[in-house]
């Protein structure tokens, strides 16, 4: 008897469920999903990415939106981990019916999301996922709906090697890398490749893990090896730790890194004398750069009320969102199929430079080399691809 009641409830619920299927969302607005790791191992990356993207959306909305439609951001926590990222992507695509996704930050989350987005015909632009597999499938074909706003690994690694060899005259280099972080690993791999191809020697290659805080074992080896440069293409948190400990151990070899160094939280005293490849220089007088830094600082304050300084993540998220919205504007319709074509042929002047996309949907832009000196990050050189 009891079970029959339960069964009928089951049937009833199914019916209710069926009837509750949401109606198509109201028009007159464009939904843009932002997938960012707001929890998980690196919440700070998520927060900065979200803030950068929201800054762009706010600017557009202030100007009257895109195609006369208001832009509605939908923020989802994707944890920099495949499962939650996939759930977030499925949710925004199927539940919220979005056609455009900005995100994810980490490649390991962006790759599974890109497969879903591409299959569903949703335009995805990842601000910071550097793994080539994000835009190119395992079959070697480019995914038509997937783009990115950042350099891919080979580019920065190559630029770093070129700079070390030509500008710093380095003959020997030591590489430090985190095997678990594909960004770091990719840069390190291509640095090694280019550097040896150009005739340099890698005198040591040591890996650490993201949760390490004590690098003395590796630093002791660096002290032993006395390389001309140390390539450390990780994020600023690791850079802060390593360079500080290196200073304390009296290591004088300069450190070279990638755009992960770009942050207001970079410990400029410790990293003093280091170089890194980046998309732009904050000293750059271009209005795009100056306006963005100002607008971002006005919109976001840190816990003390001081204006926040955008880092590479915020900048790239800002650019990625702008690229997307410009592409929609150019396509002239809220239609992902048209937007993706517009995007592929876009030329856009962003904070991180003048951007066009190559056939693999990677941005073509020049890299800037910055030097950390006297507590500031100074422009050093421009290297073109």
């Amino acid at each position, binding site marked *: 008897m009891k079970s029959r009641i339960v069964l009928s409830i089951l049937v009833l619920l199914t019916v209710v469920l069926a009837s509750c299927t949401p109606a198509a969302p109201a028009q007159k607005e464009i939904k843009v999903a932002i997938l960012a790791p707001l*929890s998980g*191992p690196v*919440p*700070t990356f*998520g*927060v900065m990415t979200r803030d950068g993207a929201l800054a762009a959306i706010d600017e557009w909305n202030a100007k009257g939106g895109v195609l006369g439609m208001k832009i509605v951001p939908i923020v989802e926590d994707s944890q920099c981990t495949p499962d939650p990222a996939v759930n977030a992507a499925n949710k925004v695509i199927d539940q919220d019916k979005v056609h455009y996704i900005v995100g994810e930050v980490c490649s390991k989350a962006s790759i599974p999301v890109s497969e879903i987005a591409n299959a569903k015909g949703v335009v995805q632009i990842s601000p910071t996922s550097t793994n080539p597999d994000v835009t190119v499938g395992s079959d070697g074909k480019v995914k038509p709906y997937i783009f990115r706003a950042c350099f891919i690994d080979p580019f920065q690694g190559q630029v770093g090697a070129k700079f070390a060899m030509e500008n710093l005259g380095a003959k020997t280099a030591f590489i430090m890398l985190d*095997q678990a972080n594909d960004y770091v690993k990719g840069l390190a791999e291509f640095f090694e490749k280019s550097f040896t191809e150009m005739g340099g020697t890698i005198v040591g290659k*040591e*890996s*650490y*893990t993201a*949760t*390490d*805080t*004590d690098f*003395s*074992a*590796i630093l*002791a*080896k660096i*002290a*032993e090896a*006395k390389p001309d440069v140390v390539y450390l293409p990780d*994020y*600023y*948190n690791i850079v*802060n*730790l390593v360079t*500080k*400990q290196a*200073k*304390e*151990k*009296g*290591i*004088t070899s300069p450190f070279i890194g990638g755009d992960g160094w770009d942050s207001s*939280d*970079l*410990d400029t005293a*410790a990293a003093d004398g280091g170089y890194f490849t980046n998309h732009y220089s904050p000293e750059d007088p271009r209005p795009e750069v100056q306006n963005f830094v100002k607008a971002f600082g006005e919109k976001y304050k*840190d*816990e*003390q009320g001081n204006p926040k300084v955008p880092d590479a993540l915020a900048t790239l998220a800002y650019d990625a969102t702008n690229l997307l919205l410009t592409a929609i504007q150019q396509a002239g319709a809220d239609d992902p199929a048209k937007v993706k074509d517009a995007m592929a042929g876009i030329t856009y002047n962003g904070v991180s430079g003048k951007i066009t996309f190559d056939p693999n949907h990677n941005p073509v832009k020049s890299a800037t080399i910055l030097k950390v000196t006297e507590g500031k990050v100074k422009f050093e050189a421009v290297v073109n691809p």
Partner: protein
Amino acid sequence: MQKVSSQPSPVIHEPKASLAWIGQLFLVAVALLALYLVVSNLIKNPILFTQFVVSGLQLGFVYAMIALGYTMVYGIVKLINFAHGDVFMVGAFVSFYAVSRFNLHKWPETAFPGISEGLAVVIGSITVMLLSMIVCVMMAVTIERVAYKPLRDAPRIAALITAIGVSFFLEFFGALNFVFSPRFIPYDRPFEVVAWYIKDGIHRITEGQAPPDNSVTFSNIFIIIVLASILVQFFLQFLVRSTKIGIAMRATSFDKPAARLMGIEVDRVISFTFAVGAAFAGLGGVLYAIAYSSIYTQLGILPGLKAFVAAVLGGIGSIPGAFVGALIMGQAEALTMGYISTPMRDAVAFTILIIVLLVRPTGIFGEPEKEKA
């Protein structure tokens, strides 16, 4: 630990287990391999080896401070307090706010303008440490009251799950913008780092100048950590051996009902144990932040886990055990990082743990299990 044995142990003729030699052979092979790795590298480059040992010591002494809290809490309530590592994190953050936001370490100079610089730094730093310890203590006691005490009679696993919950909460609540923010924050030290190298005597390293080849370097932070950790160890030994509350802690951890019959307020003693552990974690957090000078809300997870493993290795519940276990862990990690490869560090650490437990099921200093019924 005092060892008192009234009568000499008699000769025991345990019947020999069959095929035991296979396992012993295996152990000997593993030990020989490890020994070969260590000794060959020691001979190859004794200076580099010493350098690794020094960094292993620094790591080990930090672990020791956290491990004490784990071991005491486990000893008294048999709870793996996963939130302990996060208390450690809060300690680091409190000191960060005290130093970079409120300049607390500068108060002696403001209050007594004529004070000598060295003394001011010492007093200021100690104030910061005390503040962190106090905040950690208050937090740990609150956690204990809210999350653990109501579950004292529930299955042990329930308390463990709430411990994991508290740990998540502290990490992600701390990561909210208006709390600690999710950023990786560079930490301003309350005092300057001074490093030395040893080669024909001890010399100071000046900035931008590499120490000569074949020298061992160390810094004042290393010395402070070692001293603080040893001091904490002695303090705890004193507390547990010679004070009323310390003896009560041991009595409570041994037998709660009997302790209650003595009039010992068991709940208060448990809270006190949490408080002491948290105070050391807070101190450890400050020293850790000073040493590595970068903080974020998840920094406690891994040191916490390592410290717990160290406590288990040394024999959980035993204070000297936690200390020795932590030092072993530190050395194992540093030498693995130096000679095998960094990622294999955890594998080596856990292999050592498992082998030690197989040979001594309750850890190095653990008391043997009680007689079965």
